[in-house]
């Protein structure tokens, strides 16, 4: 029975199938919201209100011609999209969504899984860099270098911001952190700064405006993805969508008290909370202009990192004060 449950967990919910369906829904939601904010209609034809457009795009790309540049390393060039997709799907399994008992650690919920998720979410950046580098195209290489440069900007504030709720909850396990905040939700008010830092860092990680520097269309054509087409590009796009879901799921877990309740209630919780995060991401995307790479690094070290450090400081104070009260 537990094997069947694990199989369902891996393949259907919240594994492969759910993440695929929900990430395409999120892409539609993001595109529609972005379009409405810009006074456009957005996807409108495929399915009701264009809801199937991302799925249609995905399958259309699957059937398109797939070109590998002559000078590129065939094996690495072709395997990167698949590896990247596998990485973000794995990261998705650690979200405390279903089949998790807070009192008993298991293979998908253990002390330190928050670190595992964070590192799994760092790997796609490396994948993008390698993809750009192995394309042997000038624009791709430049895009790849920009991906890495940006990583140095947003990674530190993201880690600090995500880990500070964990400090207050006194646990490195996502399920326990969520459980802790479900019991005393008012403590979340002290994490507001960290929440916004994390959302902005996630925006940078997902390479969306104002941080869409690595694939700035008007500057370096397609950036990292210039040479990618067909199936591989489809996988990369799916990978970014799933990364968006997992990233917003992670933020919802640590900053919004996770997804309490039975299977159905926690599912509804997950949908609502991730959509809130994605709405903020879309809002930022519509309200900003792309910035330059040096401005991005400046911004994250002058503003994001100090704010994240301040959040850490607040968390330590809160912990000092409330620990005494609780005991």
């Amino acid at each position, binding site marked *: 029975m537990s094997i069947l449950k694990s199989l369902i967990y891996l393949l259907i919910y919240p594994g492969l199938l759910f993440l695929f369906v929900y990430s395409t829904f999120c892409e539609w939601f993001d595109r529609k919201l972005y379009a409405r904010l810009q006074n456009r209609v957005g996807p409108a034809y495929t399915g009701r209100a264009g809801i199937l457009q991302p799925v249609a795009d995905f399958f259309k790309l699957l059937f398109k011609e797939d070109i590998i540049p002559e000078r590129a390393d065939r094996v690495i060039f072709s395997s990167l999209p698949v590896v990247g997709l596998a990485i973000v799907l794995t990261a998705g399994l650690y979200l405390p969504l279903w089949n998790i008992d807070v009192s008993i650690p298991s293979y998908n919920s253990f002390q330190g899984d928050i670190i595992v998720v964070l590192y799994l979410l760092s790997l796609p950046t490396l994948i993008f860099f390698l993809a750009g580098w192995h394309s042997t195209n000038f624009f791709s290489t430049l895009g790849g270098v920009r991906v890495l440069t940006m990583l140095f900007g947003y990674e530190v504030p993201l880690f600090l911001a995500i880990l500070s709720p964990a400090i207050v909850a006194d646990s490195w396990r996502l399920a326990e952190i969520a459980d802790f905040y479900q019991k005393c939700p008012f403590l979340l008010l002290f994490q507001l700064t960290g929440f916004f830092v994390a959302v902005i860092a996630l925006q940078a990680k997902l390479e969306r405006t104002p941080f869409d520097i690595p694939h700035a269309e*008007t500057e370096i054509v397609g950036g990292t993805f210039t040479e990618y087409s067909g199936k591989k590009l489809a996988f990369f796009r799916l990978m970014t969508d799933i990364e968006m879901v997992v990233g917003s799921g992670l933020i919802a877990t640590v900053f919004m008290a996770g997804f309490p309740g039975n299977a159905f209630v926690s599912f509804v919780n997950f949908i609502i909370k991730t959509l809130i995060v994605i709405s903020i991401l879309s809002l930022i995307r519509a309200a900003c202009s792309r910035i330059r790479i040096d401005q991005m690094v400046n911004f994250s070290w002058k503003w994001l990192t100090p704010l994240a450090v301040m959040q850490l400081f607040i968390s330590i104070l809160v912990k000092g004060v409330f620990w005494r009260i609780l005991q």
Partner: protein
Amino acid sequence: MKKITIPIGPQHPALKEPISLRMTIEGEVIKDADIRLGYNHRGIEKLAESKTYIQNIYLMERICGICSHSHTTCYVQAVEALCGLEVPKRGLYIRTLVSELERIHSHLLWLGVAAHEAGFDSLFMYTWRDREVVMDLLEIISGNRVHYAINTIGGVRRDISEQQKEKILEGIEFLRKRTEYYTNLGTTEPTFVARISGVGKLPKEKAIELCAVGPTLRASDVASDIRKDDPYAVYDEIPFDVCTADTCDVLGRVVVRVKELIESYKIVEFVIKNLPAGEIKIKAPRKVPEGETVSRYEAPRGENIHYVKSNGTDKPERLKVRAPTLANYPATIEMLKNGFVADIPLIFAAIDPCICCAERVVELIDVKSGRSDIMTFSEIKRKYFCEKKRETL
């Protein structure tokens, strides 16, 4: 660090028309730039010599898809000067009205393009939606959205009714509100300002030395505008200010254009309210007396010059067009130097390039021998395309 040369174009997402910019870069900094033209040469000047003066109005209109009225006005002014025609006041007022509406449409379009190049797609979508209003106004007046075909030698072809006047005033009132919003947005939105301020510096002395024209020149704090310096049509009767900015960068170019939008609204309102009664055109002779003349016109992009030489027949002997974009190329190279790779599209878009308007000549150079030849298109086909085809087969 090693210097490398990167090609921007002839095909690149930042370029709407084919042109080749070769950038020598060190890391992310541009050390040198080179512009190569000739990918979109259409031989319009040669064609004009085989058409009559009336036919040429419609040919001139097709030089540019955005400032079509600029080229026809510049051309008919030259022909009218050769014939010694006195155009009726009402005709000149309508001509001015259309040219200002065209300036509004061109500047709104440019604002959207600049925002898109900077990665600010929301502003792009907003300005282009509002541009539809002015396009509709132009359609009400002339029947067309792009090629208005309102000019003719000796006046204009269509009159304006009272109803149309009301519609135009309504549309302008709406646009004025929107433009005030964009002024606020374009000059205060932090990410956008961070992106465009200090980019593409063109100091005042350099701008004058390199003969920049139009908003590019005015953004370098030089108050030069043909409408004021050498008034044509009825600009000497219309009160308006020449807009300048002293920042000498892309932000200045945005500010100048947005200010010009506001000025254009004023001009349109003035023209509508002071439209004199009377004829809209006078009859022009088919054959133009012998002579030559130069006509200047302040197009949305800068000074437009047409030179017409007549030999007494109904066809011009020579027609030379100097589009404003061509005058801005030397300044562009200066602006690009020491900029970032990320700023190339922004700087280049800031001169509002209209590449096919500026294409006057194409030189054919054989890559292997380095020899320059004059040949017909069928010769090129025979010599190069067929050879290539055989190679691939």
